[in-house]
């Protein structure tokens, strides 16, 4: 469905749905409710959305920590939820995940070296000495030298702990890493260090990233393509420069304009400011039709009745909206 002719996608996601039962099984949270995309080798695929949009759930499905409720996700062409246990265990190694809270992801009773070696121990690679060498080399590469290997997580700063988590994910040489808000908990200057590290490692190890974040600055800096998610569905997908530079979906436009820009008044384009009313509705009972319509200034009765079709309106640019771009709904002027 996406461009790039001859490369086989690392991930193919087709009508993916993940539903959770809640309220003693009476209610269903539609965390992800019909999402389609491919991730190509070597790219950074950005996934942006607010809390409750379902972006982290997608990250967990990618890392095989959750199975889809329906639809399918093909890891290198294979549906791992239907594979044998053994096969799944083996193939999911190529798909790792790094989480937001670098502290919670580390066992406080394991030394840094143990933590980084643990994935290798788990798959039983080589001898203990060989595994130690790999772990030390990786720690060295991500900027934590010999001084740190016998330290424990509480002795490290947030940025250092996130480096350990990166080393951990790299030990078994994955093809793809889902990065779930990996820099959100970090201070601004450390955030830029870690982002630089991600860019370097991508080139060195030929990695593919799915970069999940709510931070527009981060996603526009690091990703080649970006998908914008709202209440369990994609609303827009395309090359990052195009999506951020000329957003077509009203939600993307609102998101872009809500991002505070550190520039003086008059250089920010405040005249284009769209401040959305209200907050993201509950994924238990999402609005009918287009899910964004309750906060959309363009919404008409059609948006309540018809679910907008996920369609490719320009090569490589996908959108789900009845009134994309600047076109105003009939009989109504755009309020901007």
């Amino acid at each position, binding site marked *: 469905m996406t461009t790039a002719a001859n490369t086989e996608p690392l991930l193919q996601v087709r009508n993916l749905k993940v539903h959770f039962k809640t309220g003693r099984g009476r209610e269903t949270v539609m965390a992800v409710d019909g999402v389609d995309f491919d991730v190509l080798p070597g790219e950074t695929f950005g996934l942006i959305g*607010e*809390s409750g949009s379902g972006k982290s759930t997608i990250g967990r499905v990618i890392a095989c920590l959750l199975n889809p409720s329906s639809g399918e996700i093909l890891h290198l062409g294979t549906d791992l939820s239907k594979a044998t246990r053994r096969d799944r265990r083996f193939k999911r190694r190529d798909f790792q995940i790094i989480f937001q809270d670098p502290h919670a992801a580390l066992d406080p009773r394991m030394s840094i070296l143990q933590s980084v070696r643990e994935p290798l121990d788990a798959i039983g690679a080589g001898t203990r000495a060989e595994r130690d060498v790999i772990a030390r080399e990786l720690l060295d590469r991500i900027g934590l030298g010999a001084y740190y290997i016998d330290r424990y997580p509480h002795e490290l*700063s947030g*940025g250092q702990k996130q480096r350990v988590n990166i080393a951990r994910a790299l030990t078994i040489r994955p093809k793809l890493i889902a990065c779930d808000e990996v820099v959100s908990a970090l*201070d*601004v*200057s*450390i*955030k*830029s*260090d870690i*982002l*630089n590290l991600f*860019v370097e490692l991508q080139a060195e190890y030929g990695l593919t990233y799915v970069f999940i974040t*709510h931070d*527009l*600055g*981060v996603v*526009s*800096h*690091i990703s080649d393509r970006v998908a914008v998610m709202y209440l369990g569905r994609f609303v827009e997908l395309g090359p*990052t*420069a195009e999506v951020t530079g000329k957003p077509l979906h009203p939600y993307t436009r*609102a*998101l872009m*304009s*809500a*991002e*505070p*820009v*550190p*520039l*003086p*008044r008059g250089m*920010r384009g405040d005249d284009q400011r769209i*401040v*959305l*009313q209200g*907050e*993201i509705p509950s994924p238990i009972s999402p609005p009918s039709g287009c899910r964004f319509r309750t906060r959309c200034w363009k919404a008409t009765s059609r948006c309540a009745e018809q679910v907008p079709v996920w369609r490719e309106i320009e090569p490589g640019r996908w959108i789900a909206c009845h009134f994309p771009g600047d076109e105003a709904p009939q009989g109504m002027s755009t309020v901007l």
Partner: protein
Amino acid sequence: MIEDPVTPGAATGNGAATSDAKRPDSVLEVKDLSIFFQLGRSEAQITKKVSFSVRRGERIGVVGESGCGKTVTALALLGLLPPNISRTEGSVEIGGRNLLRLPERELEGIRGRQVGMIFQEPMSALDPVFTIGHQLRETVMAHNKVSRREARERSIEALASVGIPAPERRYDDYPQQLSGGMRQRVMIAIALACKPQLLIADEPTTALDVTVQAQIVELLIDLTERTGTALLLITHDLGVVAEGCERIVTMYAGEVVEDGPVDRILLHPRHPYTSGLLRSLPRLAKPKARLASIPGRVPLPGEMPSGCRFAPRCTFADDRCALEQALAPAPGGTLARCCRSGELELQGALA
């Protein structure tokens, strides 16, 4: 929105000057505020001679990484430091009285009434066992001699003024029934219920989604402009400061290192640390290009360098930086704690 009263040109005279002379229209004067914490038998200095003042209706953003003393300074302004482990020097004057030397009883009259505060996580600041109406009414009644009924009416008005839909119904809701954005609105309503002269907001939008953050920033600007309440906004987000504030105070390692008009500092910072913060923002950089960063980390209170505290992380440091630095006027009408501020052309938010 009302036009920014502090235009970059005019601001150079009075907007930035944190002079010793007390200005008649200032609502807060912080002078040489040093905060010490008792750690075991030793004492650690958390902030060192922090000085700044806030004028009536002014909106100031206090920025810096974690560990720079932003929050602890804010807590000191309200007399909320734990008295058993802390010691303070200097003064914090509100309405001509030094809060640092006031007994708790008198502080209670100032908190809420003259200074309101909101925090990052509204859920932990609201009591889950009382309705939001109860908590608002309590604030109103604590500071005003009004009947329960009148307090209820004022509370509902306060909820309406922060944009809570159907405030009469929401009045009887418990905090957990509201979304994060709505809870932060309730906190703002409580903080502003007694029309304080100053609102201190510590990372008020950090826990919120970006579209909700935009609403809250807009609300804070709108309310402070309408009521003339000054705002001290503590944040790590320079974008929020750019949109919401007129002045930036940069803190580093317990000191004020730069103080001046926002629009000026964003483009022409005069302290290498402010410049470092601005340059490391990914938003304005070229995609995938190497982001600037500030090497190292904020020193711990016990390990402060003797001269310029930023020198070990500063690419511009030379011999003179081994000496203690003063917060002094720099070109462009800002104050900077850097002996090289006059000669360096530092990069701001734009390359």
